[in-house]
């Protein structure tokens, strides 16, 4: 790696005509100055000017920003909204928990008024959500799960038996295993319902049954086929 230049806050890096400011720098009177103590990184985006930014080895505290995908844990529910603690922003863990709210209208994109928070979230669920607003003085971050990739990722049923996994991971693990029949749970996003499926690895078939998580236990008998 080529040696990178060290800089400290207040160092003049270059003029605003040579580079576009990135992170860790600020613009003043037509010049770009560093605002962190770290290394100067110049990246060529391809179009016009390179982007100049200052990076440190250790990442500083990241704040959830509008549009960021966050991982959070449900702490309490209410007929109108669910309160969560934000644990990760993207893939960076936060040192401190931020508080967020998922309103009833933001749980899913269709049939918004028929949402029942009790059926969608329970305290202790891990949810993937997106920040829609920083909120004002009184409220916390506002989050939404009304998109395809968002929703409950890990949940425990009342019996404590089944845990929902990411569907893709579950299927991958099965492809590699040798036994014939598996019963897996695949989450249906935005709710706590899941597919209880029998996977025949020889035939690569998935037979599935849509059930609420609480009813998933070993005595389930009915099967329906699911088309992929």
């Amino acid at each position, binding site marked *: *790696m080529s040696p*990178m230049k*060290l800089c*400290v*806050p*207040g160092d*003049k890096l270059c003029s605003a005509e040579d580079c576009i400011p990135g992170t*860790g720098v*600020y613009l*003043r009177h037509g010049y770009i*100055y560093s*605002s*962190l*103590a*770290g*290394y100067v990184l110049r990246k060529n985006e391809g179009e016009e000017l390179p982007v100049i930014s200052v990076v*440190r*080895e*250790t*990442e*500083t*505290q990241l*704040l959830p920003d509008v549009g960021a995908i966050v991982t959070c844990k449900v702490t309490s529910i209410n007929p109108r909204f669910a309160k969560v603690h934000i644990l990760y922003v993207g893939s960076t863990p936060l*040192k*401190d*928990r*931020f*508080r967020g709210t998922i309103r009833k209208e933001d749980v899913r994109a269709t049939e918004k008024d028929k949402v029942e928070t009790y059926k969608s979230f329970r305290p202790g669920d891990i949810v993937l959500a997106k920040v829609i607003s*920083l*909120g*004002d*003085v*009184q409220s916390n971050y506002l989050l939404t799960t009304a998109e395809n990739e968002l929703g409950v990722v890990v949940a425990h049923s009342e019996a404590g038996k089944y845990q929902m996994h990411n569907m893709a991971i579950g299927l991958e693990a099965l492809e590699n295993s040798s036994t014939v029949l598996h019963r897996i749970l695949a989450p249906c996003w935005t709710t706590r319902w899941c597919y209880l499926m029998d996977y025949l690895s020889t035939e690569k078939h998935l037979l599935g049954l849509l059930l609420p998580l609480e009813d998933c236990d070993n005595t389930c008998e009915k099967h329906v086929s699911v088309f992929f």
Partner: protein
Amino acid sequence: MAGLELLSDQGYRLDGRKATELRKLQARMGVFTQADGSAYLEQGNTKALAVVYGPHEMRGSRSRTLHDRAVINCQYSMATFSTAERKRRPHGDRKSTEMSLHLKQTFEAAVMTQLYPRSQIDIYVKVRVGLTLHLVRGIIAEIDFFVIVHKHVSIVFQQILQSDGGNYSVCVNAATLAVIDAGIPMRDYVCACTVGFVDETPLADLCYAEENGGVSSLALALLPRGGQIALLQMDARLHQDHLETLIEAAMTACKGVSKVLDEVVRQHLQEASVLTGE
């Protein structure tokens, strides 16, 4: 007054320095691993420890949240054994509150708070005298409310000396290093120095004896590269003709301090990069 001459005829002060000479400045960054940023700074005999946490969600009264920037919360405290007379209340008294407020104003000018709306940055500074941090392997010590988890640090008590002047300046310098260590973006360093005026001569970096010896003292916090003043504080009597000279002397002294702090930061970065193998 017999004996104590603040500025001798040859131009030497009480501790043997010349009028524009600063005290010896030593500093170390990244002293506590559990805080987001920390620094220890010694200027002469005044020693300060600064610790920074943040930015994190607003704690305490949520009504103080600002929608467009971060709130900076400073607390200044003195160790009970640090002054000649043992202080009963380390913080919460008027002087500490005033000092905390000044620190807050200073750092609000330098830290780019608009990057962190609705959050809080905590800066804690503790001034203590008669204590030196030695890096010795394997000893974990607990002192006051600081639990030191960095396993290579031990606290060794020396004899108690008097709290040696220039408290505000030392706090600001230590806090600057701690904020840089925490990776919080700042426009520039903040360097501070206390200057006084004796016999038509400005004295840079006052010590305790000079501060209490009837010298008009002025504390200045400067952003050295732009030459911008973050805070100017004075509560003594000074003729207005001398003000210009005094501020000039203070700015020169601050630029001297900034050179030393710059060295410390660059060295810390180099050491850190060697450890991570870049």
